[in-house]
């Protein structure tokens, strides 16, 4: 068997495309192990707004700051008071909406200056405790009374050495939605004042609380607060030891390991690339007559697949465990992608058309949602779903074991049924996938011989759609598009329908009560985002397959230049349907956050969207300029990686000027730079591919 296994492995490394994906897998593995060194945490709690132009200043250079800067443009300011005697005049900052103050002591004079800011809605007070003239952190009641109606966000940070005194009068902040309190301890009176905040939505507590004592009782009273949605607590992990009733509170983890998040994302992508290798190779080998004729063919391939899959799982699990994820969830997370791959493969081979359709739909939908959320939006998922965070820490062993058993069961079935599947593939599919190494002209004969299925009927066109067009570029492009079985509009409508169903299902399915604005919007947004992405990929994929056999069609009465133009236009039209999903995505996002969204954010969104669509089109055009699949993949992956590296570098350069979270102005700067670079790169790529396509040999 060993020589046979060796021969099977040789088929893997003799395909350049698999080598390219293998190299990507190696990079992902390296990234996964590198992330295990990452000890950073990121905050999951809501951040204070920093709108418009954001500046840093310190009291030592305050006069020159006032002289040099355009004060009426500054809307966000971070101010460091260097000495307790410094008293900077803030009255000239008439447009200031967000202020962060780092002061050794919050003197009455300083508080008076803050009170003079009429547009202030977001305030962060950090008492460094360096000018120790007192023993407790105190803010006079009058201060909050005066700021009462205007303040929406408040962050109070006492130094670790200074316990909180009374922060009386907080209840006067009648429009406060976000309150963050950090310090050593807090009096019960202050805590009770918080309870009386009429519009509080998010409470962030970064100090120790005795859950069994008075603090615990007061916390429980927050359960009945009319507007409070979430409490983020630094002692999140200790609620397991507290009274059971404490778990009824909407408690969420304050921070999470950056390494774990990146590890999960890289691990999932790693498994995806390994599954892709297996799929491409097994499919293309099993579809050949050799799969049936050669004895033991499937067994050898099954062993090879098992070795590759097992190796991938082992590496990923080890990588995830090194980032701090418990071993059981690490295995479960690793097996997500293989399980869905197996589910889709099993469903697609079922004899029942209903099971085939339903299984495929289910597999793709769940894969898209969970895979997408876990890979792209893990941070958001953690921010809202505490169970996810607990799961990664190994808190639900029974659930994890059940999940693992299910996953292993599905994978075992697919491995066991591989010979049967081989036979069925041979019987039913004569067509090879686009990336197959076999050069055959076989078509979907068996499949299409069964007569017209609803799918083929759906894509049939009427004779009047194919009339001679008298040289019209637009109509000729339409003709080329009709030659593809891909109907982007139908696809988009179907996907949007599914997004709607998920939205309705999640609202009426009970999720809405446990996570107010999380699941419905999150699922729909995710779905729409992925629909945009998938539509672009599918359009390019269909054109790639068409181009492989375009020899005869290129002899139709179209000149070389016009042919290339029409093909480029056809792809652009097909991919442009992705914009529909993108627009839904945008409007949905805007409607969800209508109260907080600003014009800048909409412009930024449009800019990002244009850049993303253009870039998707640019990498799509490689199918016209380049013939070989592995070269297309190499070019696409490497250009995407290069672009990403440039954008990250810019972000690093821009954000490197500040410590902590990136200011909105810097975010805007990063976004516009990244979008400009992406659009420029896309235009260069499209031009280059157009020129290459003009020189392409279609024979």
């Amino acid at each position, binding site marked *: 068997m060993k020589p046979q296994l060796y021969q099977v492995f040789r088929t893997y490394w003799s395909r350049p495309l698999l080598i390219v994906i293998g190299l990507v897998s190696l990079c992902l593995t390296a990234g996964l192990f590198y992330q295990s060194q990452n000890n950073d945490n990121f905050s999951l709690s809501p951040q204070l707004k920093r709108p418009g132009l954001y500046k840093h200043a310190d009291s030592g250079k305050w006069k020159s700051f006032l002289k040099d800067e355009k004060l009426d443009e500054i809307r966000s300011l971070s101010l460091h008071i260097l000495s307790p005697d410094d008293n900077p005049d803030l009255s000239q900052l008439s447009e200031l909406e967000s202020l962060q103050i780092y002061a050794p002591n919050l003197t009455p004079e300083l508080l008076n200056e803050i009170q003079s800011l009429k547009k202030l809605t977001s305030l962060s007070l950090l008492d460094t405790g360096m000018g120790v003239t007192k023993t407790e952190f105190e803010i006079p009641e009058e201060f909050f009374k005066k700021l009462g109606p205007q303040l929406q966000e408040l962050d109070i940070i006492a130094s670790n050495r200074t316990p909180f005194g009374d922060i009386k009068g907080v209840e006067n902040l009648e429009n406060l939605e976000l309150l963050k309190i950090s310090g050593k301890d807090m009096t019960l009176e202050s805590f009770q004042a918080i309870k009386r905040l009429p519009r509080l939505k998010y409470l962030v507590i970064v100090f120790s609380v005795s859950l069994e004592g008075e603090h615990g009782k007061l916390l429980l009273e927050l359960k009945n607060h009319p507007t409070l949605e979430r409490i983020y607590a630094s002692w999140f992990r200790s609620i397991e030891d507290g009274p059971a009733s404490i778990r009824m509170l909407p408690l969420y983890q304050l921070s999470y390991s950056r390494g774990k998040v990146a590890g999960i994302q890289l691990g999932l992508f790693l498994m995806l690339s390994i599954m892709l290798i297996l799929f491409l190779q097994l499919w293309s080998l099993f579809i050949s007559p050799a799969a049936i004729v050669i004895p033991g063919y499937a067994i050898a391939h099954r062993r090879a697949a098992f070795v590759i899959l097992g190796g991938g799982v082992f590496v990923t699990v080890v990588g995830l465990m090194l980032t701090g994820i418990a071993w059981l969830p690490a295995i479960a997370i690793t097996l997500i992608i293989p399980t869905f791959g197996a589910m889709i493969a099993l469903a697609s081979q079922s004899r029942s058309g209903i099971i085939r359709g339903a299984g495929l739909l289910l597999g793709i939908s769940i894969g898209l949602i969970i895979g997408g959320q876990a890979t792209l939006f893990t941070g958001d998922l953690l921010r809202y779903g505490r169970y996810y965070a607990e799961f990664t820490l190994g808190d639900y062993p029974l659930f994890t074991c059940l999940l693992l058993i299910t996953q292993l069961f599905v994978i075992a079935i697919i491995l066991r049924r591989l010979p049967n599947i081989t036979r069925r593939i041979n019987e039913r599919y004569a*067509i090879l996938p686009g990336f197959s190494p076999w050069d055959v*002209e076989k*078509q*979907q*004969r068996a*499949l*299409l*011989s069964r007569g*017209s299925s609803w799918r*083929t009927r759906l*894509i*049939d*066109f009427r*004779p009047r759609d*194919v*009339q*001679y*067009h*008298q*040289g019209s570029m637009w109509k*000729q492009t339409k*003709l080329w598009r*009709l*030659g593809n*079985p891909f109907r982007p509009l139908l696809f988009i409508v179907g996907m949007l329908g599914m997004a709607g169903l998920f939205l309705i299902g999640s609202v009426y399915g009970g999720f809405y009560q446990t996570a107010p604005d999380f699941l419905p919007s999150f699922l729909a947004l995710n779905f729409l985002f992925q629909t945009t992405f998938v539509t672009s990929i599918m359009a390019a994929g269909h054109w790639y397959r068409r181009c*492989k*056999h375009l*020899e*005869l069609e*290129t*002899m*139709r*009465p*179209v*000149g*070389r230049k*016009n042919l290339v133009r029409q093909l480029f236009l056809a792809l652009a039209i097909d991919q442009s349907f992705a914009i529909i999903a993108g627009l839904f995505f945008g409007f949905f996002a805007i409607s969800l956050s209508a109260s907080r969204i600003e014009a800048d954010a909409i412009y930024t969104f449009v800019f990002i969207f244009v850049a993303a669509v253009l870039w998707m089109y640019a990498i799509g055009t490689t199918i016209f300029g380049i013939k070989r699949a592995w070269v297309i993949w190499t070019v696409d992956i490497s250009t995407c990686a290069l672009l990403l590296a440039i954008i990250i570098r810019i972000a690093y350069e821009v954000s490197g000027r500040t410590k902590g979270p990136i200011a909105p102005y810097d975010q805007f700067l990063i976004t516009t730079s990244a979008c400009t670079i992406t659009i420029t790169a896309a235009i260069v790529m499209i031009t280059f591919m157009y020129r290459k396509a003009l*020189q392409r*040999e*279609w*024979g």
Partner: protein
Amino acid sequence: MIQTSTEPVIEIQALEKRFGKENVLQGIDLSIEPGQVVGLIGTNGSGKTTLIKCLLGLLRKSGGCSKVFGVDSWDLAELQKSRLGYVSQEFAILPWMKVEAMCDYTGAFYEKWEYHLVRRLLREWNLNGDKRVGALSVGQRQKLAVILAMGHRPELLILDEPVASLDPVARRQFLQSLIEFTEQDKNTILFSTHITSDLERVASHLAMLKQGRIAYFGELESLKDRCKRLRIFSDQPLPKDFAIPGAIHCEINENHALAAIPDFNYETVSQISSRWNVQVQVEDLNLEEIFLELNGIRSETNDAEAN
């Protein structure tokens, strides 16, 4: 459509095509006049498909010149393409479409599409218009490809092994349609094939490719007149230095010999007879035998003949 010009439809000069280090076409010269039916033959790998693809601008030439309707092959425009039809060796035509829809779809690209001709050919060649293209057999798809290539009544038809997968009935129908195609409008055909009997039936000219070069181009009948087999008998064993000038090969077996000569004339026969004192019998060769002889393969064994 009637050909109005007497300029060559296809003109190739010193055409070269290289794939990496492999020199597939090594200086092809060929000129095909309107109305000619040219059969292109050659062994596997001799460059027939490459020549056709270079001619149609599907492959870029490495050197030389290739023109169709007086325009460089690489730059064929709408006008030239609308005047030619092409059947590829490996054709993959949109499998999900129905046969009739495929015909309509192809027709939409052409200003003049003969719907009646296409329907007639579909009927005569037993192709079901409601069937999906992907569900057709290889032979049926080849028939469809030929119909699609002829639907706009091209002046030039280029076919790369069009009958390879056709049954004898379909082949006969196909050849008949080719004859009609040329007889009615004086159209031009270039087609490659390995079935020499088909060539003999329809071709007026023959182009033989050998190792990337044209080994012969001219009228088919002229080739047959020139290429003969000589059977030589002697009363005594033939001497060791016995040779026939210009023979492709000469096989001596004691007192008789067998030779193939590409440029036959009766003067040669009389010279051989008088010089070696032998009897010479001249035999005609069919195209397959000529092809084999010209490619260095004996078309008939000496022993068999002796018996």
